[in-house]
């Protein structure tokens, strides 16, 4: 019975079906399946299948987003029950688009990919002043700060943020990754970023790499 329900949860995540995930997760809870088991054997396994299918070329970005949404729906059912057993994230990442820049499509895809890969992600939005980046680092204490900039006129803000982090003595406490259409490795090296992501997949690989996750 509980195996069957876990399978249902897993399949519903693979289908990206929010209603079904909610329903089966609730049923599993009612049937006495441990929340952590639902999480690991149902929800997380489901999103792993989604990731595999994406890597194999059968799934596309919308499948990833819908899968992540479905997983989130299941998590919100069991979260209140997980009090003592903290959810294991791969790491904590904070991302925003710099001041003067309104481009957010790429940043949002990166966030979605990080989430579906098991990272906890905080989104600062667009047009974010450098000082806010720094304040948020103090407040949220992420392991990685991601800075997106799409305009050649705003890429300098990435540099400014890194300098501010330095001034505030925070630079050693966080890894900084950057991205956006005009960004390349040379720029990342020049401003002393810890890495640059050409696209969302490489951004995920980069984050794993920086945190020493295989």
């Amino acid at each position, binding site marked *: 019975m509980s195996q069957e329900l876990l399978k249902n949860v897993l399949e519903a995540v693979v289908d990206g079906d929010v209603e079904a995930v909610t329903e089966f997760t609730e049923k599993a809870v009612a049937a006495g399946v441990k929340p952590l088991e639902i999480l690991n054997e149902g929800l997380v396994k489901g999103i792993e299948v989604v990731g595999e299918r994406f890597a194999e*070329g059968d799934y*596309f*970005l*919308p499948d990833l987003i819908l899968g992540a949404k479905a997983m989130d729906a299941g998590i919100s059912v069991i979260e209140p029950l997980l009090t003592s057993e903290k959810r294991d994230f791969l790491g904590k990442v904070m991302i925003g688009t710099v001041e*003067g820049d*309104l481009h957010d*499509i*790429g940043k949002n*895809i990166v966030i979605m990919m990080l989430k579906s890969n098991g990272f906890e992600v905080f989104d600062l939005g667009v047009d974010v002043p450098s000082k806010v980046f720094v304040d948020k680092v103090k407040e949220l204490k992420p392991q990685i700060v991601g800075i997106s900039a799409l*305009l*050649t*006129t705003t890429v*300098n803000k990435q540099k400014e943020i890194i300098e501010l982090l330095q001034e505030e003595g925070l630079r050693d406490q966080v890894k900084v990754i950057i991205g956006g*259409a*005009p960004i390349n490795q040379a720029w990342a090296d020049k401003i002393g970023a810890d890495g640059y992501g050409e*696209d*969302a*997949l490489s951004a995920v690989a980069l984050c794993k790499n920086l945190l020493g996750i295989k």
Partner: protein
Amino acid sequence: MDFEFFNETELEQMHRATVEILTKIGISTLSDRLKGLLLDNGCKEQGGRILFTEEVIEKALKTVPSNFNLYGRNGCELVIEMGKQKAYAQTCVGAPSVIDLETEEKRDATLKDLEDFAKLADALENIHLISPVFPRDVPQEIIVTSETAATLRYSSKPQRICAESSHELPYIIEVLAAAAGGMEALRQRPIAYIEVSTISPLNSGFHPAEALIDIVEAGIPLGIVPCPMMGATGPVTLAGCVAQHNAEILSSVVASQLLKPGAPVVMSPRVTFMDMKTGLGLWAMPEQGLAAAASAQLAKYYNIPSTVTGYSGAAKVADIQSGYEHLYNALLPALIGTDIIAAAGSLDNCLISCYAMLVIDDELSSVIRHTIAGCEVSEDTLAIDVIEEIVKTNEAFLGHKHTRKHLRAGAFWKPPIGDRSTYDSWAVNKMKLEDKARQKAKELLATHEVVPLSPEADAEIDEILKKALKESTNN
């Protein structure tokens, strides 16, 4: 020549969908000026969004000019007749990188590139309007002002400017006025149109909205150029994305007319799409060209001048792929009818500008304009008497005056660089089109002379740049 993308019923459906989007979903904005303008004129606020009414939309659509002209500065004879759907070609704006003409490698765009692209476009007969690459080596606080000035110095052709924010606008307009011979002269004979990018879906933001108002108030032609991506910031379906986009653009058209009835505006649809594997923004074929054709037909339906992006694709070098992508994406909307086709010289989804590609796009622009000029059907062109005469006399058409006359009048299109020689004469150098394009770019850059700005205008522009830099770095 008469082509349509939507039939009459579909066109009506597209318009009704646009109205439904504007009246039910409306737009958002952070600009109190735009909000005030719309609400004062009968729009309503609901849940933080501004909803239009059919009356407001209709009233505004009545006052939009169906045509107006753009001009070059001193030394330019070109008159851009907006509204006549002549498919003028415009260079790509904003590329952060270029393909170096010597090394053929991709590198950051510099001020020298901006100047060279402007000069090359000035020399190319079938490129009509200039929009700049984005140089990395100018003070970024006044980048658009610097670009405008540099473009004016290296080309006399009309310009298309993209306002990045509202703060630089006063300087940009001053620079244009200096070149045009004063503010009034600029209004009478605009040498540029300025575009704002609102944000999809249906958000006019703060800067785009403020810039829109400032441009209309200054009396300069306004362009509206949001850029939704099918499946990301607009529906994945072409009809849905075009309808949403049309509503976004119309919302700004309406605002311009409420502010100043009769103000010249341009609809600049840019429906792009996304690679669903990588998330890359694509300006490739066929979706880009189809959506441009569909949107252009809507602008035509409203009798409002339009521009589309046509000279674009995903290819990374000037090659066969970039050639067919650009031709496909540009020809489709040109056949439907549009005024300006943008992004000439672009590669890599408008992220790279390439000298060789600009020369190739000049060739494409030439054949596209030749195509849409259509075919005259008259007694003279039907030439029945000539046929009769030739058949009866057993002569050849080759020796008839009718042939010579029409050949001289341009009956056949002449490719500016495309090869049509015999195999043997081609085999002497075995040059590919890309090589010829590079060679022509180098030749033109070495020999072309741009008519200079008047010394007074030049000096005045210098002063404006100095002032702009001082004021922008002070605060």
